[in-house]
């Protein structure tokens, strides 16, 4: 068959065909795999986001349940899920008295900041 193909001059055409077919299959494979990869990354992002949101909201509520500390201060934090860390800092509000403060809750994941939530706490 091989020898016959060479003789009849079919080789050129079948080589081009093979290359085109390989390229097409490869292209389809790349598209499929990149779709799967994008899906997995999006899912990880959404999941991390939901965890961070829940943690930040709970931390903010936790701060509001604590006794009022004069700013600047760090409030006690909750135990975050593995891989996450959370901080809650109080700072003075410009132009206001000492009975209101800005609370900034920062959630980090793998050392990077993923969510920052701000709120106010009053001394009453």
């Amino acid at each position, binding site marked *: *068959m091989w020898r016959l193909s060479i003789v009849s001059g079919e080789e050129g055409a079948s080589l081009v065909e093979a290359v085109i077919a390989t390229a097409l299959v490869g292209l389809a494979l790349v598209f499929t795999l990149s779709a799967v990869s994008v899906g997995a990354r999006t*899912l990880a992002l959404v999941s991390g986001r939901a965890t961070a949101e829940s943690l930040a*909201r709970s931390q903010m*509520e936790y701060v509001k349940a604590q006794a009022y500390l004069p700013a600047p201060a760090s409030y006690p934090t909750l135990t975050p899920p593995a891989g996450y860390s959370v901080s809650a800092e109080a700072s003075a509000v410009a132009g206001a008295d000492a009975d209101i403060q800005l609370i900034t809750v920062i959630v980090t994941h793998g050392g990077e900041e993923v969510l920052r939530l701000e709120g106010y706490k009053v001394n009453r």
Partner: protein
Amino acid sequence: MREESGLTLVELLVALAISALLTSLAGTALRLFLTTSQAGSDQLVVLSDQRTSSFWLARDAQMTPPTGVDVSPGTLTLTWRETITDGVHQSVYSQSSENLLRVHSYEGMTSTIPVARHLAPAGFSAWLEGELLTVVITSTRGGASRSWSELTHLRSHGQATP
């Protein structure tokens, strides 16, 4: 002619073997692909449970004074008085098989909505420590499982218990 037909048979066998191999590989890949997307979809469903239940719990609990909370195993009751209309709201959260139901009543009108649909058995619990309400929910579907806790500081100011 004789040589050619012999070669064709070998070629046919080889081609058959190769195509069988390719088919089985493609089948495996397809099954992997479907399994992966099913796992992803399960994860999203569980995440949606978390988002929806957190939203409703925070919404109701932030209106409720500590004295308006009643916790019993499997049931959380939040009662608060609306300051403008002076009407009394009540939201009862309880697990009914896999659903976390929120039954809300106000001035004789009652509405029921599921705020999570894939709870694990005994996947809903709540407790009150001083002014801090903690709700822990576990949602599971397929291979995906997620457990989270929501804290709410109960605002005691200006609202009398009905």
